[in-house]
């Protein structure tokens, strides 16, 4: 029995140790790769330097919603700040998994004193969501694969004769179904209307069927640049920041096709059930990390557009180079011409059904 007792004592010690360690550190969940590095440089490092707080990084954002859900359900929330897509944040907010954020109270005002609710780009704030960046998902290709010029439109991507080779698409229905309809001739502003009908869904899947045999699927943002570099795929959908990173840092002959880019907002959320000490630390971090200068700083390291209006004029050259970042931003007018805003509320409603159908379609 003595042995059992000491065993129990040992078990009891473990959580209390974990609690003690959490006091001066923050667990921040993000996407990994070049994106996490840009946050590290622009937010984490200056913050640690200023306050001495240790930042623990976890690259789990691809599963952020499920992760928060299971932590909250289990009553053991270990994540302090989570980087999440706006659509997921809306859902987590509706389900009461993340905290409501009084933006004007928690966040820094703009340099001219503008309230945060006015300074962030319209339509990007959510009840529980602090936007950081606007990013685009679009097609990119390896120029070496197409010496006579690469695809120019989404319809070209479906043209296997003119542009032969493997495509790489993200293993989710989101955006792929929209592009399939656009390639099939649906005007961009009617895409979601069409996709809400059974006929429209059939049409989108039938269009995807045309290239299914020539598609390999990716699930992590770091994969498409890798596949393009290895020519395992010649055209891939990717996040614009990842392609920029490969172009600039690895000198890859990649070209972005901005036609019908789909842009989305990404930002911070805070899971519920934080202790008071943690919450104080979290608020302090968020105040620092989402101010005008910090958001503009992030654009020095990655080609995503800052979500504050006041940050835009501060975007300059890439750190350590003389590459002007403005032409690489998704929001630059010539890139933005045919841009489609990703409809988070459509996907909140139809996501369950379309994801099921997509998974069945993949496995069949």
């Amino acid at each position, binding site marked *: 029995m003595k042995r059992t007792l000491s065993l129990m004592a040992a078990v009891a010690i473990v959580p209390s140790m974990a609690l003690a360690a959490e006091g001066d550190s923050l667990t921040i969940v993000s996407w990994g790769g070049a994106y996490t590095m840009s946050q590290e440089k622009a937010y984490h490092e200056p913050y640690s330097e200023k306050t001495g707080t240790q930042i623990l990084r976890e690259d789990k954002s691809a599963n952020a919603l499920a992760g928060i859900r299971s932590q909250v359900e289990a009553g053991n929330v270990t994540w302090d700040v989570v980087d999440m897509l706006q659509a997921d944040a809306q859902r987590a907010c*509706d389900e009461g998994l993340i905290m409501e954020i009084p933006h004007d109270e928690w966040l820094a005002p703009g340099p001219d004193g503008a309230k945060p609710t006015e300074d962030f780009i319209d339509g990007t704030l959510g009840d529980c969501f602090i936007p950081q960046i606007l990013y685009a998902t679009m097609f990119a290709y390896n120029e070496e694969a197409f010496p006579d010029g690469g695809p120019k439109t989404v319809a070209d991507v479906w043209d296997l004769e003119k542009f032969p080779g493997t495509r790489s698409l993200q293993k989710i229905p989101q955006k792929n179904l929209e592009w399939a309809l656009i390639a099939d001739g649906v005007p961009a502003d009617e895409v979601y209307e069409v996709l809400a009908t059974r006929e429209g869904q059939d049409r989108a899947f039938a269009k995807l069927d045309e290239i299914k045999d020539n598609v390999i699927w990716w699930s992590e943002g770091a994969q498409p640049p890798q596949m393009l570099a290895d020519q395992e795929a010649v055209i891939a959908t990717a996040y614009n920041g990842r392609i920029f990173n490969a172009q600039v840092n690895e000198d890859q002959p990649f070209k972005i096709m901005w036609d019908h880019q789909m842009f989305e907002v990404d930002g911070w959320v805070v899971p519920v059930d934080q202790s008071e000490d943690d919450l104080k630390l979290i608020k302090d971090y968020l105040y620092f990390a989402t101010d005008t200068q910090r958001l503009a700083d992030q654009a020095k390291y990655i080609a995503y557009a800052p979500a504050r209006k006041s940050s835009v004029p501060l975007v300059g050259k890439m750190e350590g180079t003389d590459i002007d970042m403005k032409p690489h931003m998704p929001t630059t007018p010539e890139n933005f011409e045919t841009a489609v805003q990703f409809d988070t509320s459509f996907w909140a409603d139809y996501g369950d059904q379309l994801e099921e159908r997509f998974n069945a379609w993949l496995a069949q």
Partner: protein
Amino acid sequence: MADIAADGYVPERDESGALTTVDGTPLKISLRKSQRRAKRRAFYLVVPLLAFLFITFTIPIVGMIVRSVYNPEVANYLPETSAAIGDWDGEELPPEKVFAAMAADMEVGLENRTIGRAAGRINREIPGARSLVMGTARHVDEMQPPYREAFLEEDEDWSDLELWRLLKRETRLITPAYYLLALDFEYTPRGDIVERPEIYQVYRLLFIRTAWMSIVITGACLLLGYPVAHLLATLPLRTSNLLMILVLLPFWTSLLVRTSAWMVLLQQEGVVNDLLVWAGIINDNGRIRMIYNQLGTIIAMTHILLPFMILPLYSVMKTIPPSYMRAARSLGANQFTAFVKVYMPLTIPGLAAGVLLVFILAIGYYITPALVGGESGIFISNLIASNMQGTSAQLKLASALATILLVLVLFFYWLFNKLVGVDRLKFG
């Protein structure tokens, strides 16, 4: 006087003549007592293990099974509505009291931020219901009775009877819905069970594929492993030790490393294809796709599971005296007959153990099919995992699928026990 020992010791006896200990208790009772004490001590020694198994094995499995049928979203987060809708007959629009109850639930649910969970549950079956519920809930505090008219004015989709039937069905705390989904059936709002539309069917296909691919992998392991085990058991020690290391080295190598090695070898730009192109067997545009499909899964998993076949076979073959075969030969059997009639039956305990091990490991395999299976070579475990991730994670469906897989494994174990008998197994 047979019980008098050679040294003249006379055992104690009581009046009836039964043996006793020195203090007079009957020997039988005393023996039982000391045995009980030993048993208790043994039990204490295994208590930590039992507790460990209970906490890490029994509780999670029970939790999983409970989760797969537990359906609290509507009953708990729309309690008033659940109570009010009970005596609605489902034929025409529910009465005012149901709408009023819904309004009250929405107000509370909005405050506690739980309304989204109920909306999410309904949205799974009726796409668009999330917006309907959330949109109305945001304005519910401005509404005035009668609520029925107010709801319909807010959004006419509230007149959809299917929605109300679904709500009524969902008030039950226990639901078979997830098991039905896991078998490609669906549960209509009225409570009928029908097959799902073909475009959504996937799980039955995957269960069947997992089973037949596991059988193929087990067969391949047996075909490849049997001769190797035989060689190991019959070669001189020096050579067989070397061979044994060749079997064990990959066994000790990380699973991920071995799987990645197959990716390097088999992919279209990989070593095998390069060699074939170089040798002129295929041309550069006709590179064979050997990975990211069923073939890839079968090759990689056969390799990974092979030691689990070889080792039990080897340990049994090692104990078969070579003289048996010689005896069979000298009694007139030819090599083949002797092998089939004498040697093979003797290896069955090891063979059965190997088959059982490989098959049960294969049927629940996750990482290798995920990495090399592409779309056509994935197993049911990969779909269980995908139901646990992403925005539309369906933990309950995943629980139901996992429970079915568990039952399937138990069924195969039972079948195997019937055919071979588990007590005959020898794992090494």
